[in-house]
Protein backbone atom coordinates (compact mmCIF):
# COMPACT_ATOMS: atom_id res chain seq x y z
CA UNK A 1 0.00 0.00 0.00
CA UNK A 2 1.34 3.44 -0.90
CA UNK A 3 1.56 6.19 1.71
CA UNK A 4 -0.69 8.36 -0.44
CA UNK A 5 -3.45 5.75 -0.20
CA UNK A 6 -3.13 5.72 3.58
CA UNK A 7 -3.18 9.52 3.68
CA UNK A 8 -6.32 9.60 1.57
CA UNK A 9 -7.96 7.17 3.99
CA UNK A 10 -6.93 9.32 6.97
CA UNK A 11 -8.02 12.58 5.32
CA UNK A 12 -11.41 11.13 4.38
CA UNK A 13 -11.91 9.75 7.89
CA UNK A 14 -11.00 13.01 9.57
CA UNK A 15 -13.27 15.00 7.28
CA UNK A 16 -16.11 12.83 8.60
CA UNK A 17 -14.93 13.41 12.18
CA UNK A 18 -13.80 9.78 12.50
CA UNK A 19 -10.55 8.29 13.84
CA UNK A 20 -8.72 6.10 11.33
CA UNK A 21 -6.12 3.46 12.13
CA UNK A 22 -4.12 0.68 10.51
CA UNK A 23 -4.23 -3.02 11.25
CA UNK A 24 -1.37 -5.36 10.34
CA UNK A 25 -2.71 -8.47 8.64
CA UNK A 26 0.46 -10.40 9.54
CA UNK A 27 0.81 -9.80 13.27
CA UNK A 28 -2.54 -8.16 14.15
CA UNK A 29 -0.85 -5.02 15.52
CA UNK A 30 -3.13 -1.96 15.43
CA UNK A 31 -1.57 1.47 15.18
CA UNK A 32 -2.65 5.04 14.67
CA UNK A 33 0.42 6.94 13.45
CA UNK A 34 0.64 6.19 9.72
CA UNK A 35 3.30 4.12 8.01
CA UNK A 36 3.43 1.87 4.96
CA UNK A 37 5.06 -0.78 7.15
CA UNK A 38 3.88 -2.39 10.34
CA UNK A 39 6.16 -0.96 13.01
CA UNK A 40 6.09 -4.24 14.89
CA UNK A 41 6.82 -6.82 12.17
CA UNK A 42 7.66 -4.75 9.08
CA UNK A 43 4.88 -6.23 6.97
CA UNK A 44 3.35 -4.15 4.19
CA UNK A 45 0.05 -6.08 4.47
CA UNK A 46 -1.95 -3.37 6.22
CA UNK A 47 -5.68 -2.89 6.42
CA UNK A 48 -7.15 0.63 6.62
CA UNK A 49 -9.86 0.81 9.27
CA UNK A 50 -12.08 3.22 11.15
CA UNK A 51 -12.27 3.29 14.91
CA UNK A 52 -15.61 3.30 16.70
CA UNK A 53 -14.18 6.38 18.47
CA UNK A 54 -14.70 4.94 21.95
CA UNK A 55 -11.94 4.83 24.49
CA UNK A 56 -10.72 5.60 28.00
CA UNK A 57 -8.49 8.33 29.34
CA UNK A 58 -4.99 6.89 29.75
CA UNK A 59 -3.33 10.08 30.97
CA UNK A 60 -4.48 13.67 31.27
CA UNK A 61 -2.91 17.00 32.14
CA UNK A 62 -4.35 20.49 32.37
CA UNK A 63 -2.60 23.80 31.93
CA UNK A 64 -3.39 27.42 31.23
CA UNK A 65 -2.42 28.63 27.76
CA UNK A 66 -1.91 32.34 27.01
CA UNK A 67 -4.17 32.33 23.97
CA UNK A 68 -6.72 29.61 24.69
CA UNK A 69 -7.33 29.56 28.44
CA UNK A 70 -7.43 26.26 30.28
CA UNK A 71 -6.37 23.34 28.10
CA UNK A 72 -6.88 19.64 28.81
CA UNK A 73 -4.56 17.34 26.94
CA UNK A 74 -3.47 13.76 27.14
CA UNK A 75 -3.70 10.23 25.82
CA UNK A 76 -6.70 8.05 25.08
CA UNK A 77 -6.59 4.27 25.02
CA UNK A 78 -8.96 3.39 22.19
CA UNK A 79 -11.10 0.30 22.51
CA UNK A 80 -9.40 -1.19 19.45
CA UNK A 81 -6.14 -1.23 21.45
CA UNK A 82 -4.07 1.68 20.13
CA UNK A 83 -3.40 4.99 21.84
CA UNK A 84 -3.38 8.55 20.57
CA UNK A 85 -2.78 12.06 21.87
CA UNK A 86 -5.72 14.42 21.91
CA UNK A 87 -7.32 17.37 23.65
CA UNK A 88 -10.22 16.90 26.03
CA UNK A 89 -13.50 18.79 26.20
CA UNK A 90 -14.56 18.32 29.78
CA UNK A 91 -17.71 20.44 29.99
CA UNK A 92 -17.31 20.84 33.72
CA UNK A 93 -17.07 17.11 34.39
CA UNK A 94 -13.55 16.45 35.61
CA UNK A 95 -12.17 13.61 33.54
CA UNK A 96 -9.86 11.14 35.25
CA UNK A 97 -7.74 8.21 34.18
CA UNK A 98 -10.08 5.43 32.97
CA UNK A 99 -12.98 7.85 32.34
CA UNK A 100 -14.86 6.81 29.20
CA UNK A 101 -14.53 9.23 26.26
CA UNK A 102 -15.57 9.54 22.65
CA UNK A 103 -12.89 10.86 20.27
CA UNK A 104 -13.63 12.81 17.10
CA UNK A 105 -11.62 14.88 14.64
CA UNK A 106 -12.51 18.51 14.02
CA UNK A 107 -11.44 21.36 11.76
CA UNK A 108 -9.09 21.64 8.88
CA UNK A 109 -6.11 20.75 11.06
CA UNK A 110 -7.73 17.48 12.11
CA UNK A 111 -7.54 18.30 15.80
CA UNK A 112 -8.51 15.27 17.85
CA UNK A 113 -10.94 16.00 20.68
CA UNK A 114 -12.28 13.65 23.32
CA UNK A 115 -15.36 14.39 25.38
CA UNK A 116 -16.97 12.43 28.22
CA UNK A 117 -18.80 9.45 26.76
CA UNK A 118 -22.07 10.20 28.52
CA UNK A 119 -22.44 13.55 26.73
Amino acid at each position, binding site marked *: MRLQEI*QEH*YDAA*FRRGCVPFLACEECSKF*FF*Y*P*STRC*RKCGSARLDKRLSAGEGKV*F*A*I*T*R*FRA*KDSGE*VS*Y*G*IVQMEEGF*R*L*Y*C*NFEEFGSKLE*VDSGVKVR*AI*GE*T*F*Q*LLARPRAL
Partner: protein
Amino acid sequence: MISGFSGKIAKKYEGSAFELMADVAMDALNMAGLGLRDVDGLSTTFLPGVFDGKTHLHFQASQVAQYLGIRPKYLDLLDFGGASALAMIPRAINAVASGLAENVLCILGGKGSEVRSKGVTVDGYDRVDKGVQLTPFDRYYRGGFDFNPVTDYALAAQRHAKVFGTRDEQRAMIAVSQRKNSVTNPYALYPEELTVERVLSSPVIAEPLHLLEAVYPVDGFHAFVVSKRNRTLNDLRVEAYGEAHWPEMPCELDDLVVTPALESSRRAGFDPRRADCLQLYDSFTITVLLQIEDVGLAKKGQGGKFVESTDTTRRGELPINTGGGSLNTGQPAYMSGGVLLEEAVRQLNGLAGDHQLSAVKSVFLNGIGGWGRNHSVTLVLGV
Protein backbone atom coordinates in the same frame (compact mmCIF):
# COMPACT_ATOMS: atom_id res chain seq x y z
CA MET B 1 41.17 11.93 27.54
CA ILE B 2 39.50 15.20 28.58
CA SER B 3 42.32 17.76 28.52
CA GLY B 4 40.28 20.92 28.88
CA PHE B 5 36.74 22.11 29.44
CA SER B 6 34.70 25.23 29.88
CA GLY B 7 31.12 26.33 30.39
CA LYS B 8 29.41 29.70 30.34
CA ILE B 9 25.75 30.30 31.14
CA ALA B 10 23.69 33.49 31.17
CA LYS B 11 19.96 34.11 31.43
CA LYS B 12 20.27 36.25 28.32
CA TYR B 13 23.54 36.67 26.47
CA GLU B 14 23.63 39.97 24.57
CA GLY B 15 25.49 38.77 21.52
CA SER B 16 25.57 36.08 18.88
CA ALA B 17 25.56 32.39 19.76
CA PHE B 18 28.64 32.02 17.53
CA GLU B 19 30.45 34.61 19.64
CA LEU B 20 29.69 32.89 22.95
CA MET B 21 30.52 29.52 21.44
CA ALA B 22 33.95 30.75 20.34
CA ASP B 23 34.71 32.21 23.78
CA VAL B 24 33.84 28.93 25.49
CA ALA B 25 35.82 26.88 22.97
CA MET B 26 38.88 29.08 23.48
CA ASP B 27 38.64 28.80 27.26
CA ALA B 28 38.56 24.99 27.02
CA LEU B 29 41.51 24.97 24.62
CA ASN B 30 43.46 27.35 26.86
CA MET B 31 42.98 24.98 29.77
CA ALA B 32 44.29 22.17 27.60
CA GLY B 33 47.30 24.26 26.54
CA LEU B 34 46.14 24.06 22.94
CA GLY B 35 45.23 26.49 20.20
CA LEU B 36 42.67 26.29 17.44
CA ARG B 37 45.38 25.06 15.06
CA ASP B 38 45.84 21.98 17.24
CA VAL B 39 42.18 20.96 16.87
CA ASP B 40 41.72 18.32 14.20
CA GLY B 41 38.40 16.89 15.37
CA LEU B 42 35.05 18.57 16.01
CA SER B 43 31.80 17.24 17.43
CA THR B 44 28.71 19.37 17.92
CA THR B 45 24.91 19.35 18.01
CA PHE B 46 21.98 21.56 17.05
CA LEU B 47 18.38 22.31 17.90
CA PRO B 48 16.02 24.66 16.04
CA GLY B 49 16.30 28.32 17.04
CA VAL B 50 19.23 28.12 19.45
CA PHE B 51 21.71 29.70 17.06
CA ASP B 52 20.44 33.28 16.97
CA GLY B 53 16.89 32.19 16.23
CA LYS B 54 17.76 30.36 13.02
CA THR B 55 15.53 27.37 12.40
CA HIS B 56 18.22 25.53 10.54
CA LEU B 57 21.93 25.95 9.83
CA HIS B 58 22.86 24.34 6.55
CA PHE B 59 25.70 21.87 7.23
CA GLN B 60 25.82 23.14 10.79
CA ALA B 61 29.01 21.30 11.83
CA SER B 62 30.80 22.91 8.88
CA GLN B 63 29.54 26.34 9.91
CA VAL B 64 30.90 25.86 13.43
CA ALA B 65 34.25 24.73 11.98
CA GLN B 66 34.22 27.67 9.57
CA TYR B 67 33.55 30.21 12.33
CA LEU B 68 36.33 28.78 14.49
CA GLY B 69 38.76 28.31 11.60
CA ILE B 70 39.12 24.59 12.17
CA ARG B 71 39.78 22.12 9.34
CA PRO B 72 38.95 18.82 11.06
CA LYS B 73 39.94 15.30 10.06
CA TYR B 74 37.07 14.05 12.20
CA LEU B 75 33.69 15.81 12.12
CA ASP B 76 30.52 14.72 13.90
CA LEU B 77 27.03 16.12 14.46
CA LEU B 78 25.02 14.38 17.17
CA ASP B 79 21.27 14.63 17.23
CA PHE B 80 20.27 13.23 20.62
CA GLY B 81 19.23 16.52 22.25
CA GLY B 82 20.14 16.55 25.93
CA ALA B 83 21.91 13.20 25.68
CA SER B 84 24.30 14.39 22.96
CA ALA B 85 26.95 15.72 25.34
CA LEU B 86 27.50 12.35 27.00
CA ALA B 87 27.56 10.54 23.65
CA MET B 88 30.23 12.89 22.28
CA ILE B 89 32.89 11.82 24.76
CA PRO B 90 33.28 8.10 23.95
CA ARG B 91 33.00 8.86 20.23
CA ALA B 92 35.77 11.45 20.53
CA ILE B 93 37.88 9.02 22.59
CA ASN B 94 37.43 6.39 19.91
CA ALA B 95 38.42 8.90 17.24
CA VAL B 96 41.60 9.74 19.13
CA ALA B 97 42.37 6.11 19.98
CA SER B 98 41.99 5.02 16.38
CA GLY B 99 44.18 7.81 15.05
CA LEU B 100 41.38 9.71 13.32
CA ALA B 101 42.29 12.83 15.30
CA GLU B 102 44.58 14.04 18.12
CA ASN B 103 42.44 16.76 19.66
CA VAL B 104 38.65 16.66 19.35
CA LEU B 105 36.70 19.75 20.38
CA CYS B 106 33.22 18.79 21.62
CA ILE B 107 30.97 21.80 21.76
CA LEU B 108 27.30 22.17 22.56
CA GLY B 109 24.83 24.84 23.51
CA GLY B 110 23.15 27.91 22.09
CA LYS B 111 20.73 30.60 23.13
CA GLY B 112 17.57 29.42 24.81
CA SER B 113 16.48 33.06 25.15
CA GLU B 114 15.99 33.36 21.38
CA VAL B 115 13.45 30.53 21.44
CA ARG B 116 11.92 31.60 24.75
CA SER B 117 11.22 35.07 23.37
CA LYS B 118 9.00 33.49 20.70
CA GLY B 119 6.84 31.86 23.36
CA VAL B 120 7.74 28.31 22.34
CA THR B 121 10.28 25.62 23.13
CA VAL B 122 12.56 23.97 20.57
CA ASP B 123 10.00 21.16 20.45
CA GLY B 124 7.27 23.60 19.50
CA TYR B 125 9.28 25.44 16.89
CA ASP B 126 6.80 24.40 14.21
CA ARG B 127 4.48 27.01 15.71
CA VAL B 128 6.79 29.80 14.54
CA ASP B 129 8.20 28.14 11.44
CA LYS B 130 5.88 25.97 9.35
CA GLY B 131 8.94 24.45 7.66
CA VAL B 132 9.69 22.50 10.81
CA GLN B 133 8.26 18.99 10.96
CA LEU B 134 8.56 17.14 14.25
CA THR B 135 7.39 13.70 13.15
CA PRO B 136 6.84 11.83 9.88
CA PHE B 137 3.09 12.13 10.51
CA ASP B 138 2.69 15.70 11.72
CA ARG B 139 -0.23 16.21 9.38
CA TYR B 140 -2.28 13.78 11.45
CA TYR B 141 -0.78 14.59 14.76
CA ARG B 142 -0.16 18.29 15.20
CA GLY B 143 -3.76 19.43 15.13
CA GLY B 144 -3.61 20.19 18.82
CA PHE B 145 -0.01 21.44 19.10
CA ASP B 146 -0.01 20.67 22.79
CA PHE B 147 2.63 17.96 22.86
CA ASN B 148 5.84 19.47 24.26
CA PRO B 149 8.35 18.48 26.95
CA VAL B 150 6.23 20.05 29.70
CA THR B 151 3.05 18.16 28.81
CA ASP B 152 4.99 14.98 28.05
CA TYR B 153 6.66 14.89 31.46
CA ALA B 154 3.44 16.03 33.11
CA LEU B 155 1.66 13.02 31.66
CA ALA B 156 4.53 10.78 32.80
CA ALA B 157 4.28 12.24 36.31
CA GLN B 158 0.55 11.75 36.33
CA ARG B 159 0.86 8.12 35.25
CA HIS B 160 3.53 7.56 37.90
CA ALA B 161 1.18 8.95 40.53
CA LYS B 162 -1.73 6.88 39.24
CA VAL B 163 0.11 3.58 38.85
CA PHE B 164 2.44 3.76 41.87
CA GLY B 165 0.85 6.32 44.18
CA THR B 166 3.78 8.72 43.91
CA ARG B 167 3.01 12.02 45.61
CA ASP B 168 3.78 15.59 44.56
CA GLU B 169 5.75 16.02 47.80
CA GLN B 170 8.11 13.23 46.79
CA ARG B 171 8.93 14.86 43.46
CA ALA B 172 9.34 18.22 45.20
CA MET B 173 11.96 16.69 47.50
CA ILE B 174 14.19 16.23 44.46
CA ALA B 175 14.06 19.97 43.76
CA VAL B 176 14.76 20.71 47.41
CA SER B 177 17.80 18.39 47.56
CA GLN B 178 19.25 19.76 44.35
CA ARG B 179 18.81 23.32 45.63
CA LYS B 180 20.81 22.37 48.74
CA ASN B 181 23.57 21.18 46.42
CA SER B 182 23.53 24.37 44.39
CA VAL B 183 23.82 26.83 47.25
CA THR B 184 27.63 26.88 47.04
CA ASN B 185 27.77 26.59 43.26
CA PRO B 186 28.80 29.95 41.80
CA TYR B 187 27.06 29.07 38.55
CA ALA B 188 23.66 28.61 40.18
CA LEU B 189 20.87 31.05 39.34
CA TYR B 190 18.96 30.85 42.61
CA PRO B 191 20.74 31.53 45.90
CA GLU B 192 17.85 30.96 48.32
CA GLU B 193 17.05 27.61 49.93
CA LEU B 194 13.93 25.78 48.89
CA THR B 195 11.24 23.89 50.79
CA VAL B 196 8.74 21.29 49.66
CA GLU B 197 5.95 23.74 50.50
CA ARG B 198 7.51 26.43 48.33
CA VAL B 199 7.89 24.05 45.38
CA LEU B 200 4.26 23.00 45.69
CA SER B 201 3.01 26.56 46.04
CA SER B 202 4.71 27.64 42.82
CA PRO B 203 2.38 27.88 39.81
CA VAL B 204 1.25 24.65 38.15
CA ILE B 205 2.72 24.62 34.64
CA ALA B 206 0.91 21.41 33.64
CA GLU B 207 -0.77 19.20 36.22
CA PRO B 208 0.84 17.79 38.31
CA LEU B 209 4.11 19.66 37.60
CA HIS B 210 4.96 22.98 39.27
CA LEU B 211 7.18 25.75 38.01
CA LEU B 212 9.96 24.95 40.50
CA GLU B 213 10.06 21.38 39.22
CA ALA B 214 11.15 22.51 35.76
CA VAL B 215 14.33 23.86 34.23
CA TYR B 216 14.52 27.42 32.97
CA PRO B 217 15.86 27.72 29.40
CA VAL B 218 18.98 29.91 29.31
CA ASP B 219 21.86 30.83 27.01
CA GLY B 220 25.11 28.97 27.28
CA PHE B 221 27.74 26.70 25.85
CA HIS B 222 29.95 23.93 27.11
CA ALA B 223 33.15 22.74 25.47
CA PHE B 224 35.24 19.66 26.22
CA VAL B 225 38.56 18.84 24.56
CA VAL B 226 39.42 15.16 24.15
CA SER B 227 43.12 14.74 23.44
CA LYS B 228 45.75 12.14 22.86
CA ARG B 229 48.01 14.03 25.28
CA ASN B 230 46.67 15.58 28.45
CA ARG B 231 48.91 17.99 30.33
CA THR B 232 46.52 19.62 32.77
CA LEU B 233 43.72 17.43 34.06
CA ASN B 234 43.47 14.01 35.65
CA ASP B 235 43.43 11.22 33.11
CA LEU B 236 39.83 10.08 33.11
CA ARG B 237 38.62 6.81 31.69
CA VAL B 238 35.26 5.53 30.54
CA GLU B 239 34.41 2.83 33.07
CA ALA B 240 31.08 1.94 31.49
CA TYR B 241 28.94 3.11 28.63
CA GLY B 242 25.60 2.37 27.08
CA GLU B 243 23.09 4.14 24.90
CA ALA B 244 19.53 3.40 23.84
CA HIS B 245 17.27 5.07 21.31
CA TRP B 246 13.53 4.43 21.44
CA PRO B 247 11.78 5.85 18.40
CA GLU B 248 8.22 5.35 19.60
CA MET B 249 5.91 8.17 20.56
CA PRO B 250 5.64 7.90 24.36
CA CYS B 251 1.95 6.95 24.07
CA GLU B 252 2.99 3.89 22.07
CA LEU B 253 5.14 2.53 24.91
CA ASP B 254 3.66 0.02 27.34
CA ASP B 255 3.42 2.91 29.78
CA LEU B 256 4.81 6.43 30.18
CA VAL B 257 6.70 5.63 33.36
CA VAL B 258 9.83 4.20 31.73
CA THR B 259 12.63 5.84 29.79
CA PRO B 260 15.33 4.38 27.56
CA ALA B 261 17.65 4.80 30.58
CA LEU B 262 16.34 1.37 31.54
CA GLU B 263 18.14 -0.06 28.52
CA SER B 264 21.20 2.23 28.31
CA SER B 265 22.08 1.64 31.96
CA ARG B 266 21.61 -2.10 31.59
CA ARG B 267 23.92 -1.98 28.58
CA ALA B 268 26.49 -0.05 30.64
CA GLY B 269 26.31 -2.77 33.29
CA PHE B 270 27.60 -0.61 36.15
CA ASP B 271 25.99 -0.60 39.59
CA PRO B 272 25.30 3.12 40.18
CA ARG B 273 25.75 2.65 43.93
CA ARG B 274 29.45 1.98 43.27
CA ALA B 275 29.91 5.53 42.01
CA ASP B 276 30.89 8.36 44.34
CA CYS B 277 28.14 10.55 42.92
CA LEU B 278 25.57 10.61 40.15
CA GLN B 279 24.62 13.24 37.63
CA LEU B 280 21.12 12.45 36.35
CA TYR B 281 19.35 14.41 33.65
CA ASP B 282 17.09 16.89 35.38
CA SER B 283 14.86 18.69 32.91
CA PHE B 284 12.08 18.12 35.48
CA THR B 285 11.90 16.51 38.91
CA ILE B 286 10.02 13.56 37.36
CA THR B 287 12.92 13.06 34.93
CA VAL B 288 15.25 12.43 37.87
CA LEU B 289 12.71 10.20 39.59
CA LEU B 290 12.23 8.06 36.49
CA GLN B 291 15.99 7.63 36.10
CA ILE B 292 16.44 6.74 39.78
CA GLU B 293 14.26 3.74 38.95
CA ASP B 294 15.51 3.05 35.44
CA VAL B 295 19.24 3.03 36.30
CA GLY B 296 18.55 0.64 39.17
CA LEU B 297 18.75 2.74 42.33
CA ALA B 298 15.16 1.81 43.14
CA LYS B 299 12.65 -0.68 41.83
CA LYS B 300 10.11 0.65 39.32
CA GLY B 301 7.49 2.54 41.25
CA GLN B 302 9.67 2.98 44.34
CA GLY B 303 11.40 6.21 43.25
CA GLY B 304 9.19 8.34 45.49
CA LYS B 305 9.99 6.27 48.55
CA PHE B 306 13.67 6.31 47.55
CA VAL B 307 13.89 10.10 47.61
CA GLU B 308 12.09 10.17 50.97
CA SER B 309 14.49 7.70 52.55
CA THR B 310 17.79 8.62 50.86
CA ASP B 311 19.87 11.74 51.39
CA THR B 312 20.86 12.71 47.85
CA THR B 313 22.49 15.99 48.81
CA ARG B 314 26.23 16.29 48.40
CA ARG B 315 26.75 15.42 52.06
CA GLY B 316 24.38 12.47 51.86
CA GLU B 317 24.87 8.75 51.33
CA LEU B 318 24.17 8.93 47.59
CA PRO B 319 24.84 12.39 46.16
CA ILE B 320 22.86 13.19 43.02
CA ASN B 321 23.43 16.31 40.91
CA THR B 322 26.12 17.61 43.21
CA GLY B 323 26.20 21.12 41.76
CA GLY B 324 22.44 21.48 41.85
CA GLY B 325 21.96 20.35 38.27
CA SER B 326 20.35 22.33 35.50
CA LEU B 327 17.27 22.86 37.68
CA ASN B 328 19.51 25.43 39.36
CA THR B 329 21.96 26.58 36.68
CA GLY B 330 19.29 26.81 33.99
CA GLN B 331 19.20 24.65 30.87
CA PRO B 332 21.43 26.00 28.09
CA ALA B 333 19.72 25.77 24.70
CA TYR B 334 17.19 23.19 25.99
CA MET B 335 19.92 20.60 26.63
CA SER B 336 21.21 19.79 30.13
CA GLY B 337 23.95 17.35 29.13
CA GLY B 338 26.76 19.91 29.23
CA VAL B 339 25.83 20.92 32.79
CA LEU B 340 25.98 17.28 33.96
CA LEU B 341 29.26 16.57 32.18
CA GLU B 342 30.99 19.72 33.43
CA GLU B 343 30.02 18.91 37.01
CA ALA B 344 31.33 15.33 36.64
CA VAL B 345 34.65 16.51 35.19
CA ARG B 346 34.98 19.11 37.95
CA GLN B 347 34.31 16.53 40.67
CA LEU B 348 36.82 14.08 39.16
CA ASN B 349 39.49 16.78 39.03
CA GLY B 350 38.91 18.34 42.44
CA LEU B 351 37.76 21.52 40.73
CA ALA B 352 34.23 21.78 42.13
CA GLY B 353 35.17 24.46 44.68
CA ASP B 354 32.89 24.70 47.69
CA HIS B 355 30.70 21.83 46.52
CA GLN B 356 33.60 19.43 45.92
CA LEU B 357 33.08 15.95 47.36
CA SER B 358 36.06 14.18 48.89
CA ALA B 359 37.97 11.49 46.99
CA VAL B 360 35.78 11.23 43.90
CA LYS B 361 36.96 8.27 41.87
CA SER B 362 33.96 7.61 39.67
CA VAL B 363 30.86 9.48 38.54
CA PHE B 364 27.75 7.89 37.06
CA LEU B 365 26.03 10.07 34.46
CA ASN B 366 22.79 9.57 32.62
CA GLY B 367 21.46 11.86 29.91
CA ILE B 368 17.99 11.87 28.40
CA GLY B 369 17.11 13.64 25.18
CA GLY B 370 14.93 13.84 22.15
CA TRP B 371 11.53 15.08 21.24
CA GLY B 372 9.68 12.37 23.17
CA ARG B 373 12.32 11.15 25.66
CA ASN B 374 13.73 9.03 22.85
CA HIS B 375 17.43 8.91 23.73
CA SER B 376 19.37 7.84 26.78
CA VAL B 377 23.11 7.73 27.30
CA THR B 378 24.71 6.20 30.39
CA LEU B 379 28.35 7.13 30.97
CA VAL B 380 30.53 6.28 33.93
CA LEU B 381 33.73 8.30 34.17
CA GLY B 382 36.53 7.32 36.50
CA VAL B 383 39.97 8.47 37.49
